[in-house]
């Protein structure tokens, strides 16, 4: 069974603080996707990382794919209340499937 462990499961911080969310696996992925989901809606893609060691930035969000393509991190600098949501990582494997992490529920307090 392929697993993608996401941590922390829950994070509540003050606006302006920094945070990092991690996704770790013993499996190698061809790519890893990060999504954000708001209540009552479906997940929305933030970024896809494909190459080992790749770093992508989306404004205050920095995504990194591990060199061995088994792990990834999402770092948010100077969090804002608009960053509140459920963050999901998903590793791409063969046979049409994505392996999903359980999600990190992030609350940014004003």
């Amino acid at each position, binding site marked *: 069974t392929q697993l993608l462990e*996401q941590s922390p*499961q829950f994070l509540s911080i003050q606006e302006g603080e920094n945070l990092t969310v991690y996704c770790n696996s013993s499996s190698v992925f*061809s*790519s890893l*996707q990060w999504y954000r989901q708001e209540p*009552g*809606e*479906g*997940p*929305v*893609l933030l970024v*896809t990382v*494909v190459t080992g060691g790749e770093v992508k930035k989306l404004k205050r969000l920095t995504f990194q794919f591990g060199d061995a393509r088994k792990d990834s991190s999402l770092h948010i600098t100077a969090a804002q209340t608009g960053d509140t949501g459920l963050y*999901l990582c*998903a590793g*791409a*494997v*063969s046979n*049409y*499937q*994505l392996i*999903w*992490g*359980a*999600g990190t529920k992030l609350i940014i307090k004003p």
Partner: protein
Amino acid sequence: DAGITQSPRHKVTETGTPVTLRCHQTENHRYMYWYRQDPGHGLRLIHYSYGVKDTDKGEVSDGYSVSRSKTEDFLLTLESATSSQTSVYFCAISVRTENSPLHFGNGTRLTVT
């Protein structure tokens, strides 16, 4: 937003009754997926389709069946609903398989009493 519509958005049903959820897309994407989302489990794939009448099982397919008679429609049927099938169900579409992002509908919240 990708044109994906799920219906109904909410449904309450009794144990043992059949239930059909519908996913309709206007993007003409080949691949369609049904997921369920439960606290602590993330998203789990139920069934997926790679073309009209071409479907296959995901990791949690027991108790569910699907049909795709047209490119734009993907139906999920619970033949005899059970309380363990209380969940939020998401339909997703994609252009191809590996590395392609999924575009999700807004979900159907199903409660089985």
